[in-house]
């Protein structure tokens, strides 16, 4: 066996150029397979890290996924609003530790505007229970104060003290501007890697103020209330989009969810969503596309393996002499089979190892760029259990693939005898 290993190594080194090309092909397909797996994993983790510590998301009745998408990820269309009095009744519930009211609907140059109050900065958690941190400035104090997410500040080059104008509605072309009531940037949040980074935060009173002279989604004709007079009005909101709820004891979560669903003590039909459950449902939908990606990268591996088999098979012709020499000095046909298998497996292992190395290198060099551009935070890391399993399958497939030329060599060495008839 030792001599076979040595012969396989020497022989492979002798054909290092061809085998090197195969190794590169396998390394690249491994990198792709693992890269996709890792991005998939990170996207999923990033997704589920967008909110943490929130036990329930409460809003008007709609689909749970839609409420989650809108309230946490700012994706999708506006849901129905819920009354402010319902939000206050919820806050008074003895099981509730804290509430964060949020109101969505406006935007600033494509970034969603979220109206909330100081509780947001105290109670909101993301990732593994991390609180929000202000990189600069302070939370909203005045009616027209705004706090920017890290991405908003970076992309639009805003600094503290800059003046921004909000638009009515989310996205779209001809947005009506709230040009008469500009906001001033008073704080910029540290990066979180969550949708918070892409959000402009204002106070609920600010949201109410810019819509004072509005009715049904459009400015009231002939009515104009200048910014300096808004404080004369009651700026308590009448309705909001959703409430994030933290409980004193998590054990109460299902009881409260049922209570809200039953509508006891609320004037309107409400719905309470467990973020984790809704995220899982959401992921089931996304999972189809995700699996398609994995299938594609699996095929890339298969193509790489087919190349390996082709290269070894093609080299068999010129190696028949070599195999006959080995037979003449006592190598058994089984030894010939093993020799070829060792070679295939060796190229496979080296290819997979190089692929891992290449991936680490890519993550190390391009990781920061990915995090900045797409919010996907890849870290150089040892392969996780799932990845190891993928790698194991890849290597196994390689072994099976290299058996193909090995069996052919086995048969050739049986039929060739000592003088290959080439």
């Amino acid at each position: 066996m030792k001599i076979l290993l040595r012969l396989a190594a020497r022989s492979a080194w002798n054909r290092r150029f061809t085998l090197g090309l195969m190794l590169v092909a396998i390394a690249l397909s491994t990198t792709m397979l693992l890269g996709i797996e890792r991005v998939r994993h990170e996207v999923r983790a990033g997704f589920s890290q967008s909110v943490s510590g929130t036990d329930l998301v409460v809003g008007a009745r709609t689909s749970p996924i839609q409420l989650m998408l809108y309230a946490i990820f700012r994706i999708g269309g506006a849901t129905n609003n819920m009354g402010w009095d319902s939000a206050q009744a919820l806050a008074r519930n003895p099981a509730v530790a804290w509430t964060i009211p949020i109101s969505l609907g406006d935007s600033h140059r494509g970034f969603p505007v979220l109206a909330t109050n100081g509780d947001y900065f105290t109670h909101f958690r993301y990732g593994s229970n991390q609180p929000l941190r202000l990189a600069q400035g302070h939370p909203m104090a005045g009616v027209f104060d705004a706090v920017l997410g890290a991405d908003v500040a970076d992309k639009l080059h805003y600094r503290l003290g800059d003046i921004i104008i909000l638009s009515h509605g989310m996205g779209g072309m001809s947005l009506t501007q709230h040009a008469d009531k500009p906001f001033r940037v008073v704080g910029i949040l540290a990066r979180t890697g969550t949708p918070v980074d892409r959000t402009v935060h204002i106070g609920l009173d600010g949201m109410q103020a810019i819509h004072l002279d509005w009715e049904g989604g459009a400015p009231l004709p002939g009515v104009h209330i200048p910014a300096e007079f808004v404080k004369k009005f009651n700026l308590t909101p009448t309705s909001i989009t959703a409430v994030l709820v933290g409980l004193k004891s998590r054990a109460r979560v299902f009881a409260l969810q049922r209570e809200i669903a039953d509508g006891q003590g609320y004037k309107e039909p409400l719905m309470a969503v467990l973020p984790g459950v809704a995220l899982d449902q959401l992921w089931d939908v996304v999972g189809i596309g995700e699996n398609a990606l994995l299938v594609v990268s699996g095929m890339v591996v298969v193509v790489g393996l087919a190349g390996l088999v082709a290269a070894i098979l093609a080299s068999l012709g010129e190696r028949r002499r070599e195999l006959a020499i080995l037979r003449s000095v006592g190598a058994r046909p089984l030894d010939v089979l093993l020799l070829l298998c060792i070679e295939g497996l060796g190229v496979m292992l080296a290819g997979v190892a190089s692929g891992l190395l290449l991936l680490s290198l890519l993550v190390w060099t391009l990781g920061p760029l990915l995090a900045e551009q797409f919010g996907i935070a890849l870290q150089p890391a040892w392969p996780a259990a799932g990845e190891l399993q993928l790698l194991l399958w890849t290597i196994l497939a390689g072994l099976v693939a290299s058996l193909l030329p090995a069996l052919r060599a086995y048969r050739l060495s049986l039929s060739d005898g000592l003088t290959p008839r080439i």
Partner: protein
Amino acid sequence: MNSSPPAAIDLRDLQFTWPSQPHPALSLSSLRIGAGEHVFISGPSGSGKSTLLAAIGGIILPQRGSVEVLGQPLHAMPSRQRDRFRVDHLGFIFQQFNLLPYLSILDNVLLPCQFSAYRKQRALQQGASLTAAAQALLAALDLAPALWQRPVTQLSIGQQQRVAAARALIGRPEIIVADEPTSALDSDRQQGFLDLLQQECAQSGAALVFVSHDLRLAERFDRRVALEQINEAARAGEAA
């Protein structure tokens, strides 16, 4: 049986047909080569030389008849045992491309010792170490020490054939089988190579089975066997 040593090779009523071939490639009633005998086997291409050598080496199993080598019935051995027997007792030299290009000259010579403990042990009786034994053989075959470190691919064909001879001879196998080993050499060198080979075979007491179509070389052998005459299959093939 003990009084006279067994023949090196004793073939009887042999018939072999390659798979998917309609006619037998080899069919002979008797061929016997004595221990230490140097036999020249001649025959044009297609006379069954390769098949004969494969049968002697135990690479193929005849469908009929017996192959006894050194008194051992090869035709009755399982393939694993035949592979072992081949490396233990036979040394092969081919027409050309005898050497593994990725091994050094010394490693090429020592290859049989890697697969056979018997050859290794006998090689150690030839020299103080395996390397010494190989070097002694290389020197005896007129390969200068300066060449020993060279890659195999830088040797001339004649030098390569001598390295192959050293590999066949190491560990003193009882039979050396040479399949047209000189046909790639020019005539001066053919004589030189044959001299060295016969000298070393005589030295180790090995029987030499030398296959060639070049009859000029035949006179220096104990005996000449014309394969096309004893192989009935070849005669039938010619008639067809």
